[in-house]
Structures are given as C-alpha cells and as structure tokens.
C-alpha cells in the first residue's frame, strides 16, 4: 500500500512502472472499499427507499428494490400531522438554547483555565472534564426528584438545563485547548492598553476562536437534537415531546405503516444530516480534538 507512497512524482514514476510487475493492490483495495461502502450505505438507503413506497409494497417484500415510481404519500402524511410540527418545534426549542448556553458557559470556564490559572485550577478542570465520561443514568434519579420538587416536570426546562450542564465538560475542554493557543502577548498588549479581561475575552480571544465555536455548535446541536433519554424522563404529555420521543411514540400509531415511519425518521434526521453535510470538517475535528486531547 505504500508502493504508491514511495513514488514521489508522476514523471519519475512512469519509466519505473514499465519494468515493475503490475501492482494489483490499489485496485484490490479500491474494490474492497467499494464493497464495504455499499454494505455500510445499505441501512440508510433502506430508509430512503421505504419512505417513497406504499405500505402494501413493503409488506409484499418490495422494500429493498428500486422503486418504479416515487410515492410521496408518506411525506405528505407526516408533514400534515400537527403532532410532528409540535415535536419539531419542541426539539428546536430545546436544542437551540441548550447549544448556545453550554457553549457560553464553556467559553467562560475555558478562558479562565487557559489564561487565568490559579492554585488548583488544573484539578478543577480535570473534575469538570471527567463529567464527560459518566453514564447519564448515574444522575437520573436525583435530577428527576429535583425537577419534580420545583414543578418543572413535563416542561422543556429540565431538558434544556440538563443539556446545558452536561455540555459544560466538552465545551470547557475544547475552549481551554483553543484559548491556550491564543498568544499570551496578545492578551497582555490589550491589558496594557487598558482593556479588562471581559474585553480581552470578547474582543480579542473570541473573534479568533470561530473555528472552535463552529466545532462545538455542530457537536452540541447533533447530540442534543438526537437525545432520547432526557426527554423520556422529563416529559409526560404529548404536547412536550421532542422528535425522537415522537418517533418512538408514533411507532404505535403507524405500527404497520412502515413507509410513514421511514419518512418520519428521515425528517427527524434532516437537521443533523444537513449540519453533517455542511460542517463535516468541524464535526470530525471536534470528535478527534475532544478525544485526542482528552
């Protein structure tokens, strides 16, 4: 596989290739990857196919064939369902504030840990970051009791608050690591000019942190949008359900309407798919940055 690597340029490669025996490896690897890619795409394609087929077709075993005609009835069914609108609005009402709030808190904490360290700040940082690793089930019952006591069960508030809190570890980690790369001289120059820390943070550090903010926005948005556990615990009525909960709930309503379920899954995944397609670079960077630097 490094045979292609060892050849520096095309010009020198050509004469060499003439006396070397034909190297089958790149072709074999390419074909293997194509096969694996098809295998990996199959489940996703299945949902796509189901969403444009009638229940009858699917029940007759036609789900996995290429459709002869596009049937859009499943999408009209889903998009005309007022419950789906409610689920989507609820999810947005949770995801947007929680994403923003967790990033703001991460920026504040990350700045202190990177630029204003104090005795024990490293330990504190470690405690916060380790919050990233714990299964959420560990804090489920006390949080349920807390929000029950203050009468916030079956509202969107507990979901927003908990996601904000659970986002603090990753946001603090990434922002601290990013702020650490901002030259200290830049901060000192601003301080000498008479700026305070707040002005340094908002006018100097933040404007050059846009890539890190983009990474966090894509990560947090995807995680919170896709979450299932917290809405499951904190909401009871259909009025407050988020889309992932709605998806599970509607399995009953459309129990054999497979096509409708497919269309619903697709619509529920659309926002994160769009984020993925446009911000893939940031997304992958965030996953590896958060992980490798952990």
């Amino acid at each position: 596989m490094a045979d292609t690597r060892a050849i520096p340029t095309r010009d020198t490669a050509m004469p060499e290739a003439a006396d070397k025996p034909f190297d089958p490896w790149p072709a074999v690897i390419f074909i293997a990857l194509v096969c694996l890619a098809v295998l990996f795409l199959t489940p996703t394609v299945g949902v796509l196919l189901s969403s444009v087929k009638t229940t009858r077709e699917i029940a007759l075993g036609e789900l996995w064939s290429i459709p002869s005609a596009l049937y859009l009835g499943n999408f009209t069914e889903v998009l005309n369902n007022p419950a789906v609108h409610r689920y989507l609005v609820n999810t947005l009402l949770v995801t947007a504030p929680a994403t923003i709030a967790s990033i703001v808190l991460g920026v504040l904490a990350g700045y202190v840990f990177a630029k204003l360290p104090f005795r024990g700040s490293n330990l504190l940082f470690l405690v916060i970051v380790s919050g990233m690793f714990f299964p959420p089930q560990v804090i489920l019952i006390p949080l349920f009791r807390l929000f029950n006591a203050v009468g916030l069960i079956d509202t969107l508030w507990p979901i927003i608050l908990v996601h904000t809190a659970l986002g603090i570890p990753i946001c603090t980690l990434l922002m601290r690591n990013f702020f650490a790369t901002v030259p200290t001289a830049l901060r000192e120059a601003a301080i000498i000019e008479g700026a305070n820390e707040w002005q340094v943070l908002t006018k100097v550090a933040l404007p050059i942190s846009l890539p890190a903010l983009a990474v966090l926005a894509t990560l947090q948005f995807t995680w919170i949008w896709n979450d299932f556990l917290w809405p499951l615990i904190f909401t009871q009525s259909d009025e407050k359900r988020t889309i992932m909960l709605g998806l599970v709930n509607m399995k009953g309503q459309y129990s054999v309407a497979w096509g409708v379920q497919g269309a619903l899954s697709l619509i529920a995944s659309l926002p994160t798919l769009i984020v993925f397609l446009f911000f893939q670079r940031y997304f992958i960077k965030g996953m590896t940055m958060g992980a490798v630097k952990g």
Partner: protein
Amino acid sequence: MERQTRFWQVALLALPLTVFAVLVIWPLASSFYYSFTNWNGFSADYDFVGLANFTKIYTDDLFRNAILNTIIWMVAAILLPTLLGLGLALLIDSRIPGGAMFKSIFYLPICLSAIVVGQIWVWIYQPDWGLLNTVIAAIRGDDMNFAWLAKPDTALGSVIVAWSWQQTGLSMVIYLAGLTAISEDLLEVCEMDGASTWQRLRLVVIPLLTPATVVVVALSVINSLKGFDILFIMTGGGPFNSSDTLAMHMYNESFKKYLMGYGSAISVVLFLIALTIIGIYFRQLRRVDEIYG
C-alpha cells in the same frame, strides 16, 4: 492587578461552576444518598434501609444477568468498532482515489440518532421482509422467517451489530488522524530495508498508532456504558431480559417498578465501574504520553 485577576477568575467561573455543581455534582452525590433509602419516586417521605439495596444486588438474578450482558456488550462494542475502524482507516489511508468520499460514507451513521439507527436495524432484522432474511433466503433458496430480535440467543448480538455499524466511523476518523502523524520517511526506510507490507503494519504502523488506540478504546468503553437508547428501541432489554444491560436494568427498576432507592444503588455500581475505567484510561494516557511524547 492581583486583585483584579482574582475578581475575573471568580466572575467568569461563577456561572459555569454553579450550573455544573447543581446539575451534575450534587445529583451524583445524591445518588449515593438515595441508594440507602427506599424512596419510590412519588412520596415525600422515605426510610433509610441501610445497605439493603446493595445486599439485594447480590441476590438479584436480573442484576447478575445485566452485569453479564453489560460485559458482553462492552467487549463486543470495543472490539468490533475498533478493529473495523482500524481496517477502514488503513485502507483509506493507502491513497486510493475517492478517499474523502469513503470517509464520509463510513462516518455518516454517527450523525444519526440512536433511535433512527435502531429503527433502521429493526427493519433489517424484520422476520418477514427484512433484508437479512431476504438475503439468507435468496442464498439458501428457501424461506427464512427468523425473528432475530425476538430470540434470546440472537437479540443482544443483533443490537451489537447495529451499534458497531454506527460507531465504526468514529474509530476510523481517530485512526485516520493518528495515521497522518506517522512520518512517511520512516515507512520509506522500512520499505528500503525490505520489510513486507504485513511486517511494516505489524511492527511499525500499529505500535505507532498506540495513542490513537488508547483514545478509541476509551471512547468505545465510555460510549458503550452509556448505550441505552439503541437497546431501548430495538429490544427494550428483552426478550426474557436477554439484552438487559446495567443502564437498562437501572431504568426499568427506577421508572417502571418505581424502586428509585434500588435504582440508585444500581447507578452507584454503574458509577463505580465508570470511575474504574476512567482511572485506568487516565493512567494509560499518561504512560502513552511518557512513551510517545
């Protein structure tokens, strides 16, 4: 100056620390507290029952079953995505055309929710028209109506496959990031010294990928401990508790049977397991840092 710095440290940390303390640290401590009570989730009062919840763990067959399933789930959830991710990363890194496209394809499932992934795979395993049975039937030339998710022998394994499908992309990108750090000169030297591809892989590339492996394994462990949604939608822990993991068991005891005290005890065990793993992870991370700088 000194006093000003102190002011800003407090001012900037106040909000994040308060939120984190109230919604993460305090609940964590409370979990320990409730694990010594018999709170039912509704009533205002409850009694202290001492270690009763923990002794119950010892006699609870379902708990033992859940621990066993958690171990199977975790071992498989570590091995499959790690090995698959490593394999894919090595193939993609070999400079074949379309590398970026392959990367996106294998990474795509990560942005889908566990609920949607579960839904997709429920259809693949569907007994009458699911893809798996359709393919097997076509190969055997015979009817195939096996209910993969409804049989105790295959339920957990079937969910593990779906989980691996989603997680492989994550391992792959971390390995790809690790591979870019390996110097090309080194590989060229190996080749000039007559090392075969296999030797180069086994003796140079994979050892140099150790830091990436530590991260991949740690992430797999952590993610698999959290794995709840996909089991919830695909099997609900069934049939006959054959795919019941600790997280699932904890949810059922607490929110189905309303044994919140006992549920807290299970979550304390879950916490201690996570703590142990994180401890090992951080120690390994330091070792890796020492060796590889």
